[in-house]
């Protein structure tokens, strides 16, 4: 579904992401972990088009999307959430979803979606997502006035509202308590069960080990390990990266 080929991004002399090879398979939940500053966020920004790669390419569904602007990538079916929630605060919950619905129809159907109130099917989809996010009763509230956990859920369903096949979740558990993380865990699984593929960038190890099918580990911008959660936990380089040694790990 998503392939990173020899992907690199350098900031001056700093190799934030260095020759990264990574494949996300359709229908899986892939975890991307690594210590602070290991290049996770840069990777997300390269995949979504916020940054341009210094070298290498991003392939999505067999197409090279390295040069496409962010909104084109979302149109193709790749959506993200943000580590530091970025909702449309002065829009209602419903409007947040409605703005994020990508109009792919052409001709009259597209005109109706853009300029009129939209087709019934499209509104029903958004309603279903509201129910999925437990936000149906708050549909007319301004996003800025939601509680923290609700804002996280709204970001999640806003990403799904674009019709994305691949969701990039950038530290969705940040700031959450144990109960909220449990809830997030089940929501991520349900999103996958609805046929979506998920790339989970996360600090919270318990969640990653619990929910992911496979895990890739970054350190110093390079991938140092990849495999099932159990395999990765046993990996000597991963242990070194997390527990800290003087010797930088090499792939």
């Amino acid at each position, binding site marked *: 579904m998503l392939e990173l080929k020899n992907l690199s991004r350098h900031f001056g002399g700093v190799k934030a992401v260095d020759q990264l090879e990574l494949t996300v398979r359709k229908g899986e939940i892939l975890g991307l972990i690594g210590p602070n500053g290991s290049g996770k966020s840069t990777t997300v920004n390269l995949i979504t088009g916020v940054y341009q790669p210094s070298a290498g390419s991003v392939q999505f569904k067999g197409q090279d999307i390295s040069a496409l602007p962010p909104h084109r990538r979302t149109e193709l079916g790749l959506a993200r959430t943000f580590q*530091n929630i970025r909702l449309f605060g002065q829009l*209602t919950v419903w409007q947040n979803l409605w703005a994020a619905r990508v109009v792919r129809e052409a001709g009259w159907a597209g005109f109706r979606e853009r300029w009129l109130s939209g087709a019934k099917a499209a509104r029903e989809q958004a309603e279903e997502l509201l129910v999925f996010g437990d936000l149906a009763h708050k549909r007319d509230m301004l996003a800025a006035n939601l509680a923290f956990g609700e804002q996280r859920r709204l970001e999640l369903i806003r990403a799904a509202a674009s019709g994305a096949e691949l969701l990039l979740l950038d530290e969705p558990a940040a700031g959450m308590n144990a109960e909220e993380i449990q809830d997030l865990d089940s929501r991520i699984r349900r999103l996958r069960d609805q046929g979506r593929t998920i790339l989970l960038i996360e600090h919270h190890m318990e969640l990653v080990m619990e929910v992911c099918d496979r895990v890739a580990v970054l350190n110093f911008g390079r991938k140092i390990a990849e495999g099932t959660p159990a395999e990765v936990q046993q990996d000597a380089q991963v242990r070194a990266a997390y527990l800290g040694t003087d010797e930088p790990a090499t792939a």
Partner: protein
Amino acid sequence: MDFYLGLAQVIGIHTLLGLSAWCVLHTGQVSLAQGGFFAIGAYAAGMLTSMWGWPLAAALATGALMAAAVAVAVGFPALRVKGLMLVVATTAFAEIVRLFFFNLQWRVQTPAGPVGPDGSLGFGGIRYFPSNGWTTLQVCILIWVLVAAVMFMLWWLDRSRVGTVWRAVGEDELAAQSAGINLTAAKVSAFGIGGGIAGLAGGVFAHYATHIEHSNFSILLATFAIAYPIIGGLSSLAGTLLAVIFIQGFLTEGLRFIGDWRSLLFGVLIVVVMLVRPSGFLNRSLGRSLGLGRATATPQTGDATRGASTHA
């Protein structure tokens, strides 16, 4: 009576101008180019009726379309700059337009004598209304029919996905892009539609005034244009209308006895609104209690500040 009809005409024209800025402000862009689009519509429509005898409706529509086309052309480079730099860029554009008309000389012979823009002397003889026997009341009705039509169109637009997308872009450009919103399309469409409305307002103004000149389209006009929606609030169209009535009806006309001190009050008003009600006098909660807004508003909670912490 004529005084009030004249005032109603001015309020109508300025409401159109304010609505044009309302469109652009929705996408988070502060444009001082609205006066320039207004000037383009004024000169184009005025020239078409007075120099070539076009019917009024066709001239107004053409003026609006020309202003919209220029606005789209300006909208593309304007995408590259934001905030203060956009203010500077659009101000420069408005000055270019003003100086263009300051220099434009294009006179043609008509049965009533030579007509057309005459450089710094201005452009007189836009006498469509008097020579077709329109009364002040009829002109006033025409203006307010146009205001109503534009307001209905914008109200409709605001309910559609396009309006939601404009607001989303104004809220957070990066989030909007990531949600699949084409920033270029959103900003340029807002610029184009706003430019068209300003051009329409300009065309009406030219025929209302019968004589226009470059100084009508100074930076003060653009300041008024963005002040209306800022003071009235972006959450509803009625806010812009109320702001125009307040500024033109009360501040400019009602306080005529204090003379030029009025312009100072205008500045004071903007500062006060920014301090006291940054989202405009008619913000969501007031609008809702008056039955105007749609969104539910409750006081800001502190919860959004959570989330900076991460579990390592």
